[in-house]
């Protein structure tokens, strides 16, 4: 059952990870860093738009000790969900992975679910950042955007804490 109550904007920090853009040749996209210090979960939602055939961009997630790149290291995740039938369907398909997967389909939605306890907190890694690698094979179009929705906040109220501050 969908059991978060009331309005998302008043319950979960919503953060732009990567603003909508057309990827440039040989350029990777480093997402905004967000702190999980005050939330126990993050959903990373990535959307593609127009996308050249035979183009692939790898997605990885870093954990870090700060929201700005400091001593980042790869964060392992083992599953992602994708809907490559947008907008004709909203169904997400679960797929196993080993810490990375490729964006390779136009108009697709990809979701990664990360729990706060996935991070190496005992070494002060309490922040994450999504990175979209170089779009291999890119000719013209590789439109992408990403955002984070942080859930299970530890403190309530309409005035949300700023997850872009650690």
């Amino acid at each position, binding site marked *: *059952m*969908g*059991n*978060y*109550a009331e*309005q*998302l*904007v008043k*319950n*979960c*920090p*919503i*953060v*732009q*990870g990567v*603003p*909508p*853009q*057309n990827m440039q040749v040989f350029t990777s996209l480093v997402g*905004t860093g*967000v702190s999980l210090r005050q*939330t126990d*979960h993050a*959903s990373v*939602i990535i*959307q*593609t*738009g*127009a996308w050249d055939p035979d183009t692939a961009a790898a997605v990885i997630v870093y954990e870090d000790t700060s929201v700005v790149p400091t001593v980042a290291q790869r964060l392992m995740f083992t599953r992602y*969900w994708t*809907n490559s039938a*947008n*907008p*004709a*369907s*909203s*169904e*997400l398909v*679960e797929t196993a992975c080993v810490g990375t997967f490729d964006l390779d389909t*136009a*108009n697709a*939605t990809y*979701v990664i*679910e990360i729990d706060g306890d996935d991070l190496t907190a005992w070494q002060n890694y309490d922040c994450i950042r999504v990175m979209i690698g170089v779009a291999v094979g890119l000719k013209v179009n590789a*439109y*992408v*955007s990403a*955002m984070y*929705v*942080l*859930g*299970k*906040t530890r*403190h*309530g109220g*309409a005035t*949300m804490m*700023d*997850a*872009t501050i650690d």
Partner: protein
Amino acid sequence: MGDYAEQMVKNCAIVQAFPPIDTTGAIQTGTVISLKHHDHVTIIINQGAWAAGTPAVTLTQDTSCVGAPAVKALGFTHMYTNTAAPGSNVFVDTAVVANTFNLTAVANVTTVIEVDADTLDATNGFDCMNVVIASPGANADLISGTYILSKSRYAGAAAAMRDVTID
């Protein structure tokens, strides 16, 4: 308190309203979604690089997700904006007049609209809705839109995964 439990993909339906796009000169008519199985939808509009233009945002309610259903305006009274994105996630609550507002001509803004299912005219069969962004004019404006449907009426991953593009 943020009280949605576990994974969003297993509790909420996540749907592209419209994909990331350079919307120059074009209207973005969002995917029509059904609220038959959810009591709430959050509409998230992300702007990227923004040359100029302040396109109007409206909501439409529909009697079906497909074909040529009856449509009419859907009322809403608040919207939330974060003009400091991605450097912040703090949103400002702004009253909406006459069920429409204009996106600001600022790059990297995030705008959120919260819609309860009981604001739709279900009595007359309007149980679907979509967001519409007017053309910003001939400007290279990057934008994407997302729906997150919550408070599903049926439990479990399968319910959250229910295809909300089918009424």
